[in-house]
């Protein structure tokens, strides 16, 4: 199961490095019902799961630093590994109602979650609720492999 990336990510990668512009301040991982596409630009274009019981609008923050990500360099293979992400359901399941999460998306930052840029997404398999007291964990998942 491979993660997918948006066109926007590629554009931002270039702009950040070469032009010194549009650098993200941080990242978020949100849970959505349906898959984005390569043309998806903002989280508002997707159907986010219902908030509550530990899930906040826009998802879980991920810092733009060596804590949030690790980047490994090898011949022909650059691996970007995301640090632990936890979605813990408390007081009830996540989501409290509605459709279960089928995808996790990595977004940029922004005060309004709906306006956050979507950079990548990956499938969670069969849409599954997080039971109360349980935690969905992305533990050092390899989010991207940048390959040449």
């Amino acid at each position, binding site marked *: 199961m491979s993660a997918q990336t948006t066109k926007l990510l590629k554009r931002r990668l270039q702009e950040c490095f070469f032009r*010194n512009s549009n650098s993200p301040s941080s990242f978020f991982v949100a849970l959505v019902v349906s898959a984005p596409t390569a043309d998806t630009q903002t989280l508002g274009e997707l159907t986010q799961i219902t908030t509550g019981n530990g899930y906040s609008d826009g998802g879980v923050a991920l810092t733009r630093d060596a804590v949030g990500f690790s980047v490994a360099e090898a011949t022909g293979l650059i691996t*970007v590994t995301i640090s632990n992400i936890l979605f813990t359901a408390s007081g009830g399941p996540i989501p409290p109602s509605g459709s279960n999460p089928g995808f996790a998306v990595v977004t940029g930052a922004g005060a309004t979650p709906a306006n956050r840029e979507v950079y990548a997404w990956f499938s969670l398999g069969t849409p599954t609720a997080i039971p109360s007291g349980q935690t969905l964990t992305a533990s050092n998942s390899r989010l991207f492999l940048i390959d040449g």
Partner: protein
Amino acid sequence: MTATITSIANATWTKNVRGYCFHGRTSTPASGSLWQVQTAVWFVSLAGVVTKRHVGLEFVHASRVDGERIDFLLVDAAGNIEWATPVTTTVPTGYDLEYWVNATSGSDGGPGSSGSPFQTFTAVNAAIRANASPGDEVRVHWSGETHTITSPTGGQVWRPYTTATGGTDLGIRVTWTNISGTAVISVNNGYGVVNMSGAHASGFVNDGVTFLGAYTTGGASVTGEAISWQAQTAGGEGPNVTLLDCEITGFHAVFTAASPLIAHSYVASGEFDWLICEGCTFGSTSAYHFNWDDGRYYGFYNCTFEDSKGDNTGSSMRFARQHYMSVTNCTFDRTANPSYGGNVIRINGGEATGAWDYGQYLSFNGNIGYGLSEGIEFDGAGATSDNSVRGVWIEGNIFSMINGYFVSFGGFAGTTHQMDVVEVRITNNAEFLSNTSANCMILISCASDNTSVNKVRSLMIGGNTMYQSIPQGAYSFSHIFLQAQGHVDNYVDGSIWMRSNYAHCAWTTGGGQYALCWMYGVLTAAKFVASERNIMSSAAASPTWRWTELIDLAAWRTASGNTLDMSSSQTGNITADMVDVTAAGFDPTPSAGTGPQVGAGLAGLFYSDAVRMLRDPFAPTAGSHEYDATPSFVPDPTFAGSETGTIGATIPVPTMSASGLLLINTSASGATSANSVGRVQGPTSFGTKWTLTDRGKYRLARLFFQNLDEPANFYIGLVTNAVIPSASTIKLADLTEIAAGNGYTAGGNSLARTLANFDDYAESIISPKATTIFFSDILITATGESIPVSGSGASYAVLLDDAVTEADRDVLAYLDLGSPITATIGNQIKVFNDGVTFDDYTA
């Protein structure tokens, strides 16, 4: 200086040293440059008549005669010779005559020149010593003899020292090798190998040489240590000790190292490193096997630690601080120890003010212990210090315990200072208990005050088995799987991952109030990030038992699949609430079968690795006890989403393990954009594009995701084709830059990191998902004379980062300029409008 033969009188040392090979560089022999003693020739004469000649570094002259003269000739590897000063001997009655030669200096000034080196040496003198310098290598070859030193109360067999009393800069490398048979050195109460002080300890290798001390069962303690490494200067280096296939027993300790940290102050610059033990047997000691203050890079492999004749309570390994240590495939046997005392491993820096215990990146894998009362202990005993363990992996160990605990943290009660537990993994271990009670497999003692900064932060407990054969005692429960003490706030919420552990009590006749207690102490459900499929079982007909004692874990029990307790009370009858999975006829099918049944709430039980492991050994009946014989359950402990609906509402959500691939590809097929390389006197199209290097991709990802290594600007460099750039090129130094001058600057011409210089952006230029960024025109004009000033012309342009040192600049991308270019005066090398394209990974 001439080598000297020293006559040893009144010696009880009955054998001589088999041989030495000295790098005697401190020697200034009268005849040539004697460098390394290759061999020696002994001449024994009486009244001017040679009666015996012996060739070799060893000479045992047992049938000597009074008045004999001994002449000794040393020969080095280069053929240089050196005569020793002859000696006339007097044979004492009742003793053999021995010869001890200091081949380098001729005289050590110590007891060897006046008496037996193996009898009268004192604390500052050694029986054998090489007057070598730091960096020298000394090899001592032992034959298959037993060397008995009968009455030393101090001193040592070997002391790698420059002089008897001085010397501050050790660093001699010493190798002891057993060259034939079994070399045994019996030291009684003396030291085996020691250095007492100095900035740097010497390296020491013992390959197959046995050390025997005087300590015996029930006897008085001894003070001698087999190997004592005591460099005490901050910043000192050592010990660099390797022990291979040797036996050491009967000492105060096998190994002690009072490191530069002896004063309990870590010295980062000190390298008191490297202790490697493989295939050794370490026997009875009157204190410890290994005891050190601070070390790095220690490894124990396939060694046996026995205390079968001892009656002490010392640990096999006791240290204050350690970075990086592996203890693998070792055996700890205390079955004949009257008290079964002493830890297998104990981190304990003492309770003194300022002392602190510290362990980082330690691995204990595949070890076996017998007859133990204490397992692995991380004390955290400092009264005023913060202690910590981090990155500790305890995996696959099997300990047979008489009592005590398998592993403990913070064994000493503290108010505000205890053991910080971070990234500790205790998995797939087995603890078998007998005889006593009221102990636990895992013990954690946090500070009693919630202001403590020392906390349990991340602890994984999985797949462990605790099997208790005979619980008894006056305690309210017999044995506890996890005991957590101290203030509840010192356990970080979500810090404990506990899954698929198994505890079984084989007690059938009664005794304690409770046969088993899963947990005791202060934990709450919030402390667990994941906890499921932990099970208890008992062979007893109707013992009482408890999931928890003194803690409220109702939520933990009901929410995480630890649902063996189906009653409303925490105290229940085991036959009603628990199922003995080892009983004959047990059938794991919830609603069918003929054996003892389990309810729906026990479904999670069948996902327990522990159950799967134990069921067959304890009840190997074919068929009904086969785990995979229950098709309604998915035998996959990873809990895939497909289990939804099978085991109820407590299905753990699968870990997000998805991975994605993103290709940054600069040369996708079909690239047709107008890319040009300007050459001398006008541009010429070549249709090539910039190729990002691996380093370039790495830097892009690193800046975007980690906000690291942001370049202030770029450089455009020109290189020859002497070394062709490729995706694996890393630094400018990897390539051959053209000669600088006339308008080209060494390290490349600066290119600002601005929108203007990377001026365009397009989607779908190559594929629907590709994006391309273009460079602005880059002109390098030859002024004064040609570019390059001399040498080969430019074949490639390279985009570089802004490292200060030009040679260290990262090569981010490169562009083939075709045949080598030279720009004559006034003309330009023009590189323009070439894009860097990103495309999707399509493999």
